[in-house]
């Protein structure tokens, strides 16, 4: 799981959905969700553009284990 969005912090501004270079994010029920986590490039654009620190990164087991 790469970018992870804290629903409680997200205010639905949509900036991360607007900008994600790989189109992995989408709006659902007024908040941003990571719809295609396997297609994340880990570029961090979503986090840089989030004013509310709602985005964190979790690295998949394979990235940390090999």
């Amino acid at each position, binding site marked *: 799981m790469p970018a992870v969005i804290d629903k409680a912090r997200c205010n639905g501004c949509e900036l991360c959905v*607007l*900008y*994600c*270079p*790989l*189109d992995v994010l989408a709006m659902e029920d007024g908040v941003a969700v990571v*719809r*295609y986590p*396997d*297609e*994340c*490039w*880990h*570029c*961090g*654009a979503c*986090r*840089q*553009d989030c004013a509310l620190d709602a985005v964190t*990164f979790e*690295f*998949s087991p*394979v*990235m*940390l*284990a*090999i």
Partner: protein
Amino acid sequence: MAAVIGSEVHHLKADVAVIGGGTAGLNTAIAAAEAGADVLVVDKAHIVRSGAIAGGIDHFFAYLESGEPWDTRDAYLAYVAKVARGASNLRIHEKVFCEELTAAMARTERMGVSLRQQDGSYLRTQALGQPGPYAINFDGKFLKPKMAMEVKRKHCRILNRVQVSNLYLHQGEIAGFAGYDMRSGDFYAIEAKAVVIATGNTNRMFKTQTGNPFNLWYCPANTGDLHRAAFDVGAELANVEYVRLTIVPKGMSAPGFNAFFGMGGKLVNGLGQEFMNAYHPMGDKAPRNVMVWGALQEVRAGRGPIYVDVRHLKAADLEHLFSMLGIDKDTLPEFLRAKGYNREGTMIEMTVSEPMQARPSELCGSGIKIDETCASNISGLFAAGDASDQMGCLHMCMAGGFAAGKHAARYAAKLAHHRPLQANALEEERKRVFAPLLRNTGIAPGEFEGIVRIIATDHFGPYKSEVSLTSAIAKLDALDQYRDQLRAGNLHELMRCHEAVNIHAVAKIVAHAALARKESRFVPYHYRSDYPETNEDWCGLVVVRRDGENGVATRFERLHYDA
């Protein structure tokens, strides 16, 4: 839902249309707008955060005429001639880089991104075979958004999230292109007097270290969409036989090579031995392909894994190094922490990255063949940045992107009228583009793309021979039968379908070009096991173009160097 998608058709016109809004494309747009052209930028993502530097960038190569013997234009060109020999056309390099460099640096600063440290000095490091420290370290975290703001200030029109699907000619000259919005499903027909392609290289063509095709050094959204489309209308491509690799942290393919080795990091093998001096007199400051070759040989000899050792660096240099890593790849420092590394320094395990279709050196490109005016062989079609055969890397995309915009605007200004697009061709394209959405059964794009990756990796990723390439072409050709069975459940998957088809098409072109070059060059980027030596007779470009419905024609164009 599917019946509605694609029914909305927009017809637009522009003097200059730029396809791809990364570093090169945005500089192209700025230049064309400053020259008075009506400019349209079309990007598959969003220009604020698209392309190779979406998350940031940390270095800019330049000579600064500081008085040092290595810091002159001539010394720089001698370096280009040495490390990009047979790939970089120095005449073009002078025009698209040297003559634009001063203005490109001034433009960067004017847009609000300083190339200098807080005290006004440049912090420069040396790596990659450079005769002196050409890499200006700087904080380019916001360079991409700032360039996007500049493009908006210049009143360029912007179409975000539009994937261009095909180019169209009228009597052999560029007329425009078609595409679709992968968020709304609207279809676009765009007439442009001049078209500039700036869509980067082709990624996702080879297997990766983690098995995830998006865990890449370079941007996974670059899928050769316009390499394929330009080739289909007869554009010549060059430098496409090279399969580029680098050295990345184990587990995460990320940039950082220049930062690690520029700051003095050393490659160490599994026996704890530094080894690069055995492969090149410049050791860990050797050209990138030599570093990759050294790492591959150590692993093959049973002396893996490989590590980068930074334990000898001073505390302040270590701090600078780790901050630079995060500027270029936002998530890399925390990845390294998650792996248990710290600044004081355990050695960091590295690996040779996934291969990619890209330039063999930082000093040239790989793709649409351009002349000194960034023009292709098709009238009205230009290329810039990594998508061209002569530009790559931030410094050239900033400088050469701007050059392309000036020339495209000049070309467009001479045309009184737009060349027409054919209505029947557009209607046919509209049906073709959305067809995967209408299939109830079929093949998922990821499965098709995965097959291409296996074939490309096994047959030319990166080692190759006549047998491996000939059989790769046969296998890739046989895959054609599945292209019309690709199925998309939504618009996002539709984009992935077209990307998969484009990666497949470019893989074929790469294999044909590699088959034509009967020598090895920039080893291992072009390593022919049946022709393992570099041969001066092949000092030049293998130029490929479409031949008939399914064929690829190649020719050789010699490049000349003084030494």
